[in-house]
Each structure stands twice: as structure tokens, then as C-alpha cells.
């Protein structure tokens, strides 16, 4: 095509299949994401959301299908900060050892990132001394330290109270505004509706519905989406 594309494709996943033993986790998933997009993956537990992120991050190998991804950063649900290092050292480790940045540069950039994410005052703290929200922001800083165009976030809202959830949404919006692509998994339809630019609904290892979050959440087409939203509403009421 000769026409200029509105945005560069940062992630292109086609026909992804993955089996664990006899269980089929992914049964042919297609997914693309362009620069500046915030893509949310929704689905009941076991639908394959997290597995997609792990395959894209290179932590698992798919049995079939292709993944074309730019350099990727990953923010884990349970953060997995390096327990023996301070917040600052966690953020500096990859720039120093993978990118071979001079220590001083890596430290300056790490402090800057932690500052931007609102945890600049926790540089010297060890992971076990951080609150859930602080650990998540350090974890985001660690993933951003190697400057990946694509950032994957697994259940980023799971451990946050509503106020923190709002702060996270703002932080993600700022990242997207700088041209970064975000792919996240979430159970929280309010968060997805407010902060995602596109949503994909997964059920039993397949994408069953996708589109504008407002549209999909207001008028779910697929039975699996309706079930998912019912479960979510029930949980929020409880």
C-alpha cells in the first residue's frame, strides 16, 4: 500500500496456538497493536490473556503462529521485583547489564523514571518494604528503563484501590501520549472503558469480540462477553 499509514504497527500476532499438556490454552489468536494504542485483553480466568502476554514477552514458546513485536517491557501482576536489590537498583539493572549504559547515566535515568511515576522518594527501599501500588510503579519503571516501544501489563489494576486505579490510568495515558503502545489484561470493565483505546474479549483461547471499549462494554455481542460482564458486576457489588 502506498498510502501513508496513520500509525506504525508495533505488535502483530497471528494464529497463536499454545498447548500445556492436553489443555489447549490458545487456539489461534490474532492481535495487532499500533503505536500509541492502549489495548485491553479481557476474559474470564483461564481464557488465555496472561499467556498471550507471556508469549509476546518471550517467556513462553507458542506451538504455532507468529509473533512480530518491537522490544517489549513486561509488568507482572505480582511485580517480581528483584528481592535483593533496592528500587533504584531494580530499575538500573537492565540498562547497565543488557544495554551496557554507563552506571551514572543509568542511575540518572532510573531516578527520573521513578520520579515521574511518583515513587522518587522510595529509591533506597527494598521490594518487601514497598506497598502494592509503589511496587507496581517501580515495576513499571523497571520495564520502561530499557525504553521499549511496547509495554505489557498483566492485571495492573488487580491490587489497587479506586484512587490508585485512577492514578495508574493517568500514568498509562501519559505513556501512550508519548507514542508507546500498551497491552494490558484486566478484569475491571470500568478501567478498560475509561483508559483503553481498544478491547479484545477472549474466551477459551480465542478472541470472540473486539472493538471500542465503550461500544463493547455497553452492547456486548458475544455470549461470553455478556457472561464476563455479569460476573464482573456481581463481583463489584459483593
Amino acid at each position, binding site marked *: 500500500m502506498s498510502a501513508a499509514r496513520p500509525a506504525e504497527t508495533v505488535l502483530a500476532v497471528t494464529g497463536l496456538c499454545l498447548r500445556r499438556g492436553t489443555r489447549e490454552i490458545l487456539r489461534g489468536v490474532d492481535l495487532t497493536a499500533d503505536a500509541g494504542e492502549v489495548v485491553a485483553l479481557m476474559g474470564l480466568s483461564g481464557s488465555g490473556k496472561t499467556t498471550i502476554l507471556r508469549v509476546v*514477552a518471550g517467556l513462553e514458546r507458542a506451538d504455532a503462529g507468529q509473533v512480530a513485536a518491537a522490544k517489549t*517491557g513486561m509488568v*507482572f501482576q505480582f511485580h517480581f521485583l*528483584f528481592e*535483593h536489590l533496592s528500587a533504584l537498583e531494580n530499575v538500573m*539493572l537492565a540498562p547497565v*547489564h543488557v544495554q551496557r549504559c554507563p552506571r551514572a547515566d543509568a542511575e540518572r535515568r532510573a531516578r527520573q523514571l521513578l520520579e515521574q511515576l511518583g515513587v522518587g522518594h522510595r529509591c533506597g527501599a527494598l521490594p518487601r518494604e514497598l506497598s502494592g501500588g509503589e511496587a507496581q510503579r517501580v515495576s513499571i519503571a523497571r520495564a520502561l528503563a530499557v525504553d521499549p516501544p511496547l509495554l505489557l501489563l498483566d492485571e495492573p489494576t488487580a491490587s489497587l484501590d479506586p484512587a490508585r486505579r485512577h492514578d495508574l490510568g493517568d500514568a498509562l495515558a501519559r505513556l501512550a501520549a508519548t507514542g508507546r503502545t500498551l497491552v494490558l489484561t484486566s478484569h475491571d470493565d470500568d478501567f478498560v472503558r475509561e483508559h483503553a483505546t481498544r478491547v479484545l474479549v477472549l474466551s477459551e483461547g480465542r478472541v470472540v469480540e473486539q472493538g471500542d471499549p465503550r461500544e463493547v462494554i455497553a452492547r456486548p455481542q458475544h455470549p461470553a462477553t455478556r457472561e464476563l460482564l455479569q460476573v464482573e458486576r456481581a463481583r463489584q457489588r459483593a
Partner: protein
Amino acid sequence: MSHDDRLRSRPRDERRGTFGLTALLALILAALPAAAQERAPAPELVWGGDAEGGAPYVEADADDPTRVVGFDVEIAELVARRSGRTARFVQVAYGSLDQSARRGDFDLALSGIEDIPARRAELAASIPYYEFQEQLTVRAADGSRFRTLADLRGRKVATLGGTMAYDLLLEAESAHGLTAVSYDDDVHPYSDLLLGRVDAVLLDNVLAERAMRRHAGLVTQPGSAAAGHYIIISAPGNTAFMAQVDDILRTAMADGTLEAIFRRWKVWNDDQPPLFARLLADAGAAAGAGTGGPAPATSAGEAAWRYLPSLLRAAGITLALSCAAMLLAIVLGAAVAIGRVYGGPLLAALLTAWVELVRGTPVLLQLFVIYYGLASVVRLPAYLAALLGLGLNYAAYESEVYRSALESVPRGQLDAAASLGFSRGQALRLVRAPQAFRLALAPMTNDFVAMLKDSSLVSVLTVVELTKQTQIYATNIGSWVVPGLLCAGLYLAMSLPLGHLARRLEARWRSPAS
């Protein structure tokens, strides 16, 4: 009890004669109600000796291993007979005879026990019954170059620890610049001489002659480095009984019984008649005034002061050996652990088999195999063999500690490292190993403290470390109290700071980083 009668009696007649005497004595005792409380039909004379490699002193009878034979056995039986008792032998390790005597484990002990002032000061001791010469044995090829201790500058000379010969060698260390090597037994000095691990052996003529019969290729130099005597010992305060033993020995010297025993065991020589003559001439003089000279009147404090430098040096050896062996164990253990965690199934199985083999067999056996067993293939110096033995043994334990520590690091930590682009090697070096090390620190500290103490086992390879030096010291002064306390203090001085350091490190990792 006619003295003349005994002078005429021949050894083989003795049993009958003593039997009559015993019977008569038993009749008299039975007739006396006051003595009836001690009535034992044949009172036993319990005597201690070391039958391990003990020919011609005390050894298990080849025809009946429950019995012991040797010239010391015959002398013990002679003393028993002539004091109206039946001899019963108890096995006591040579190095423990003095302590055992002090505890009163037996009535008396003979096993080629040397007459040294400290022994005479601490225990009841008999007059000497045999004179020996300290003789230098060398390989036949060195016969013309190593004639005396003075020819052995820079060489290693072996002997049995805690003996007069060992003290002579310690003096020769400063006088002639040789190195004294102490063994726990009197067999391995000669076999190591043949292997070239040492260049000479200084031991008494009885042991030297026995070694010459066992090994070809050795020569014993004619001169004597010093003369010494064998004595019988008993618990301190047992002087009345010792006076009786002295009488029995003198009588046996006078009537030829002792000579007959020594001739039977081929240890009679020209040194004995003058000794016997002198002792018989001394009869009537103060009991126990042998040739050992007066006992040194050193206090425990003085003795401690005198031995402290050698104990400190030995503690240095213990510490250096333990540190070096631990370093080897850590490096090798880490390599084995990484091989088992990251390697293929074949490598992991081989390494596991090695770990089980090493953990499942005694370290003492491993030390013996490395030092003596491999001697025909590779002649390792004692310190190197000790280092390898301890290091290889502990490497097996360390590898288990590290393997389980590596496997305890949560999977998520490795996922996080992989997602940041670290290679497997980087993830191990930067994330997994540092975290595993924190988990392994407490068991490692434990192992190091155990190593400090296990290093005492290497004394079987002639390495004089802290425990061995303490044993030598205790044997020389005839008491375990001060040496034992000093030794314990030195071990604690090494292990306590280590534990303290480990706890501080752990505390630092637990609390906020600075």
C-alpha cells in the same frame, strides 16, 4: 618367700611355684574373717596396652586372636603371677594410656611406655625394665648421606607423636633445620619413608628392627640419638603397688626371667645388662628413682605459657586449612550445584551419584584413600591431601545447599530477568545466585564451623593441627585440663566471630538498605 628360691627358679617352673604360693595365701585369707570381705578366689590384675600393630610388645595372637602375645604381655603376666593375681588385658590406644591410667581404668599399663619426666611426675611409675636407643632409619640409597639428624637439614623426619623421639626431633628442628612429622602409629612412618614422603624415621631400636624385617630397602644407622627406657605405669597414688612391681622387676632381672622374655622376643641386647646391674645396685634406694631424672616442677600456668605459641601455630594451621578447604568446597560445590540445576539429565545424574558417594562414606576413609590409598599412583604431600580430602568432602554438602537454594529462588524472579533481556548466565549471576547466596549463608556458616572441627581428622595424615597439638601437649604434661581449655578457647575464638559476621550479614539483608 625366700629370695634365694626365686633366684634359682626358672621361668617355666614359675607357674607351679606361684600356684602353691597362691593356694597357701588363699587358705590364710579364708581363715581370716576380717579379710573375707575382699575374698576373690583369684584376684585380677587388669593391665592396659595397645595391641594395634603392637608386636613385639603387645599383639593379637595369630593362632587365637582373643589372646595377646608379646614381651610386655609376658612381663604383665609375670607381675600378676608374682603378686598372686591373674592377668586380664584391656585394649587402650597408645596415645590414651596416660589418661586411662589416671582414670584408673586398669591396675597398670605396659606397651613400650617411655620413661619421661612428665609421666613420672603425674603417674605412679615403675623402675625401667628395658633400655632402648633412638635410631635413625633411612632408605638404603640414602645410607651414606643421612647418617645423623644433622645431615637432614631441610628434610622431613617422621616419628610417633608424643614420644621422646618426637621431642628430640622438635629440638632438631631448631638445631638442624629439619621438619618433624608426627604419626599416630609406628607403622606408617616407615611405609611413608619408602614412598619418599619423609626422608628418615627416628624411633627406638625395637621398632626400627621390626620395620627392617618388614620392609626391604631400609637401613638403620648404627649410632644412637638418645637412650630411653620402658616403664610400667599406674594411677597416681598407687605407689605402694608400684614398689611391689619394682621388687618383682628387680627379682626378674636378677633371676634371668626378664632376660629370657627379651631373648624370646629377640630384643635382648648388650644395653640391658648394665641397666639391670645399675637398678639392682640401686635397690634399697628411694623407690622409683629411675633414670628419668627428677620431675620438672612446672605449674599448669607455666606449662600453658610454654605451649601457647605451638598451640597458636597449630590453630593457624587449622584456620588456614579450613579456609582453603572451604574455598575449594564452595567453588566446587557451586559448580556441581549449577551443573545439577542447569545441566542435562546425564550430567545431573552423574553429579548426584558423586554427591551421594561422598556424603555416604566417612571423611576419615576418604582421607586415608587420598593419602595412603592413592600413594602408589600419586604421592600427595600431607597438606595437599588434607586440603583435597576436606574440600572434596565438603563440596558434596555445599553443592546440596546451593542446589536447594538455587531452586528456592522464585520462578517469577527468573521470568522478570528474562523479560528484561538478560541471558540465562546473566540471570544466574545477577539475580538467582545473589538471592540463593542469602538463603545459603546460614547453612554455609554452619558447615564452616563444622569444617573447623572436622579438620582435626587430618592429623591421621601427619598434619599437626590444633587438636593434635593439644593432644601432644596434654600427653607431655600429663593433663588434659589446661590444654583442653586452651584448645576449646581457640576453636571458639575462630568459630564465634564467624557466626557473628554471618548473623550481621543476614540482619543487613533483612533490614532496609542504606
